[in-house]
């Protein structure tokens, strides 16, 4: 897919990611639906396939989930610069896309987090800070368990998906009770998946 982006378009892209940043409560992945709306449906700067494979690839690669934003920026840049076939100018524009989207999504939330947490750390003996941390602790722990549950339960077909549940359940037990290296477990999961057993 090939598109032309003016300087104003790049500005609009940057502003859009800036505005999304503070809405990303609960992780970058919560902004995915809006990024899809803006880039795929509205501006047509990104194809639907590129969007989906950006998310899949970010999940399959090491690093925080926010890497899917870098891939989205990369693909928009590729589309604007003629793709990998265009050689270095194409790659340069793709990297520019990464920079625009990643810096945009990072600046507002990082600034807020840094300022707020430095304040909270200086005032850690204050009742409000202690109450916040103590009060939120059980909720946060339950959220982790619920996230694990949702990621597994997402597959709605028990007859076909039961091996996924067994694998997730076994992983939970192994990580809870042993010190097995996490990469070993992930590699094992990838192998089972590649063989088509789950």
């Amino acid at each position, binding site marked *: 897919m090939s598109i032309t982006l003016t300087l104003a378009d790049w500005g609009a892209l940057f502003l859009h990611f800036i505005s999304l940043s503070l809405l990303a409560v609960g992780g970058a992945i919560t902004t995915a639906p809006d990024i899809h709306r803006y880039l795929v449906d509205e501006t047509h700067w990104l194809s639907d396939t590129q969007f989906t494979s950006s998310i899949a690839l970010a999940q399959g690669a090491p690093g925080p989930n926010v890497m899917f934003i870098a891939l989205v920026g990369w693909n928009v840049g590729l589309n604007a610069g003629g793709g990998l076939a265009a050689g270095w100018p194409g790659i340069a524009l793709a990297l520019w896309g990464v920079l625009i989207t990643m810096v945009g999504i990072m600046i507002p939330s990082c600034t807020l987090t840094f300022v707020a*947490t430095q304040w909270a750390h200086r005032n850690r003996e204050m009742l409000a800070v202690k109450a916040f941390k103590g009060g939120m*602790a059980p909720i946060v*722990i339950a959220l982790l*368990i619920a996230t694990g549950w949702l990621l597994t339960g997402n597959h709605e077909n028990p007859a076909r998906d039961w091996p996924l*549940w067994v694998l997730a359940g076994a992983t*939970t037990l192994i990580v809870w009770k042993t010190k097995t290296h996490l990469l070993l477990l992930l590699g094992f999961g990838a192998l089972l998946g590649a063989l088509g057993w789950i």
Partner: protein
Amino acid sequence: MTTPHSVAPNAPQNKTDLFVSFTVLALQGFGGVLAVVQRELVEKKQWLTPDEFVEDWAVAQILPGPNVVNLSLMIGGRHFGLPGALAALSGLLLAPTVLVLLIAIAVAGFADTPVAQGMLRGMGAVSAGLIAAVGIKLMGALKNNPMGMLTCIGMGALTFIAIGLLRLPLAWVLLSLGPLSCVWASHCIKQRGAA
């Protein structure tokens, strides 16, 4: 007067240590970094006790932005101010960005094949298990909670039902149960202080 609080045995030595440590843990985190953060920073390096990790994770979760990014800013900033926060953040993001782009170039086309989809399914199931295991392990940290274990379990169960079973939006749950729990925690801390 104050809540009994364990102190972490170790701390990052300098900004390079922060950068390298966060690079190492980012490169191990497939499908999210949380499980690795808990394993590396709490169990191996012991920069944080389980209690501190839960508290910091609560803050990282509430603030906008990727959770792990927020956590890196908090830990870096606590030990070495703004330069420390930037060192931890760039450690977390730099190598994975380069790597994910290299992978994108290498596998252009492969990501949509059945084998790649199968691998992602398998890794997805494992990472679901990893996240749930971190939650279960951290339940031990609640025994020092000012609200007491029983209230914590009740509050946790409500959260799990709302998010995991009823699938309510995260914002609703955080904005309703969150303040309720914090007000009760504040009450309990005051009670303990008065006793």
